[in-house]
């Protein structure tokens, strides 16, 4: 009954829309149209084509020879190890990035939120990598991490330690590109945390101090719990960003050594454009899309307001 009533009310409300409301709606659509058109053309149409290709045996060299293969591409993902291995490397990479970015970004935000001198300069310094192209960053780190002439190995040997292979060691390469990505993204995380920190009313920390809390206790009992939603948001943004990382694998390691940095997007790229297996690459893309969508939905569910201030 209630559902019917509610629908009735909605219908009645729609019917009651005044000419002015109708005109406003038309104007709104006119303003939205250019963006919607571009979105449709460059996002949703390719997305639909990709979804279709995921069920095809399809090569970019000879698109006309494409043929429907049902779920073969998806069953191949289970049959061969490449997807599993690439996803494992990607998740490990994302975990590394998040594990570095969250504490570091939070610490930087605390610093930027303080009244300490030089925070203006620090703000600029940490934001610089964020606005720098991933290609430039990757190239720069290639120089820094170079086994023979790199600056970092220079420091390592100056300290009397053995020269490190970094990007050419299967044990170190993934760690190094995770560190590099974290270095690039930490400023963004810090800015998000800073926004969260500045949204927490000052009186809460003051009330806690009056209640007998030390600065560390205020941080632990008040600030960090109140920033849980910001933290979750940063975790999700960084995870999704890391799952889609391409430049480090492409420019620094070629997915190697021994596929240790074969991130999923790079793997998709190689499958489609090097192996010329666009159908399988499309299926991998669909899988990635589902994963990212799942994470985003989980975030929205977890971020629903439980309390506010």
């Amino acid at each position, binding site marked *: 009954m209630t559902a019917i009533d509610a629908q009735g009310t909605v219908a009645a409300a729609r019917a009651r829309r005044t000419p002015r409301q109708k005109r406003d709606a038309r104007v709104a659509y006119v303003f939205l149209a250019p963006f919607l058109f571009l979105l449709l053309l460059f996002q949703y149409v390719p997305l639909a084509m990709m979804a279709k290709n995921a069920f095809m045996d399809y090569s970019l060299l000879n698109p006309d020879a494409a043929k429907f293969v049902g779920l073969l591409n998806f069953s191949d993902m289970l049959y061969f190890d490449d997807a599993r291995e690439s996803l494992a490397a990607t998740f490990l990479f994302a975990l590394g990035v998040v594990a570095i970015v969250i504490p570091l970004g939070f610490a930087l935000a605390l610093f930027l939120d303080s009244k300490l001198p030089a925070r203006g300069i620090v703000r600029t310094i940490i934001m610089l990598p964020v606005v720098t192209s991933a290609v430039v960053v990757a190239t720069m780190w290639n120089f820094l991490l170079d086994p023979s002439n790199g600056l970092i190995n220079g420091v390592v040997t100056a300290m009397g330690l053995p020269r490190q292979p970094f990007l050419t060691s299967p044990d170190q390469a993934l760690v190094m590109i995770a560190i590099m990505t974290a270095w690039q993204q930490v400023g963004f995380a810090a800015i998000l945390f800073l926004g969260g920190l500045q949204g927490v009313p000052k009186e809460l920390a003051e*009330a*806690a*101090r*009056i*209640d*007998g*809390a030390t600065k560390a*206790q205020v941080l632990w009992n008040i600030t960090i719990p109140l920033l*849980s939603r910001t933290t979750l948001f940063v975790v999700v943004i960084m995870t999704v960003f890391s799952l889609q990382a391409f430049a480090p694998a492409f420019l620094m390691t070629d997915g190697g050594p021994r596929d240790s940095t074969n991130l999923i997007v790079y793997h998709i790229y190689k499958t489609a454009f090097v192996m010329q297996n666009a159908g399988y690459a499309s299926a991998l893309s669909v899988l990635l899309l589902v994963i990212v969508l799942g994470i985003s939905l989980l975030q929205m569910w977890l971020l629903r307001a439980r309390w506010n201030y």
Partner: protein
Amino acid sequence: MAQVSLAGIGKTYEGAGANTIAGLDLDVQDGEFLVLVGPSGCGKSTTLRMIAGLEEPTAGEIRIGGRRVDGLEPRERGIAMVFQNYALYPHMTVAQNMSFGLRLARLPRAEIRRRVEGAAETLGLSGHLDRHPKALSGGQRQRVAMGRAIVREPEVFLFDEPLSNLDAQLRGQMRAEIRRIHDRLSATTIYVTHDQVEAMTLADRVVVLKDGRIEQQGSPQELYDRPATRFVAGFLGSPQMNFLAATVRNGALDLGGGAVLPLPPGRPLPEGRRLDAGIRPEAFAAAAPEDAAFHATATMVEHLGATSLVHFSHAGQDCAALMEPARAPRAGQPVHLSADPARLSLFDADSGRAV
């Protein structure tokens, strides 16, 4: 319980030209309910925050119970504070909010429970202990904030405009409750407000601040009846006191516009002295035209129920008189008023000090 004393307290903010507070001396007796009142920017909240330890004075000494506390952390001062915006921890339940300080102090669980339940009982929050602040009304949140202060059994309670976010009816109720709790706990209480009704109704002693200095202090009635300055006279009392420019002429007070009142008894004043005469709206009385000192036309009449506030203009000055509704004129009608000279407040026209 404790005495609070401020000696030569000053506060200057970097970049601000003048001192916010300069050389403030104040002693609050053990168990006293002291209200700091003044317009915004007078330094009352800053003074309270310095007592709390949330801000450090740039000069002077603060003592609580004889112990010097400036430079100590808030937690070392034996105080509790209720904030204007309640400052409840949104992620904690009512019980957790109230017990936060006790848990930090590592009190035994049984003792924490005893105190929280006791405070909740006093404040009528017993049924809400498991709720989050979001699920409470404004009045309930205010009670939780008070409960959080009470459970700590502090020596000094500090209130920073605790009622200004509540509606008028609730404000009246909470005012009574705060006074009741004070009387029961007999803790020293320092209460900051810009609301002169709160100041008048709650205080044992009111301190009126202006520009970081004490303008006057005393019991509410004392301040109301014998304001030391024109500022205090204008600040306390609602509706506000009327001020008229006056000159002493022929041994009487010439209020301009043909109004002449005898000098207040026992206050001889030199001939020609220029004064500001303060007349409270209730000090006016309707009079027959031949007996009245003030003859004017009512410009507006506000009916307040028990009384009516009649606005009129005298010698270019807007005035208001409280009258019985039955005797109040309508807007546009003539109004004839007398005023009791004994209820006049006189201030020097230049310094604003009472004469």
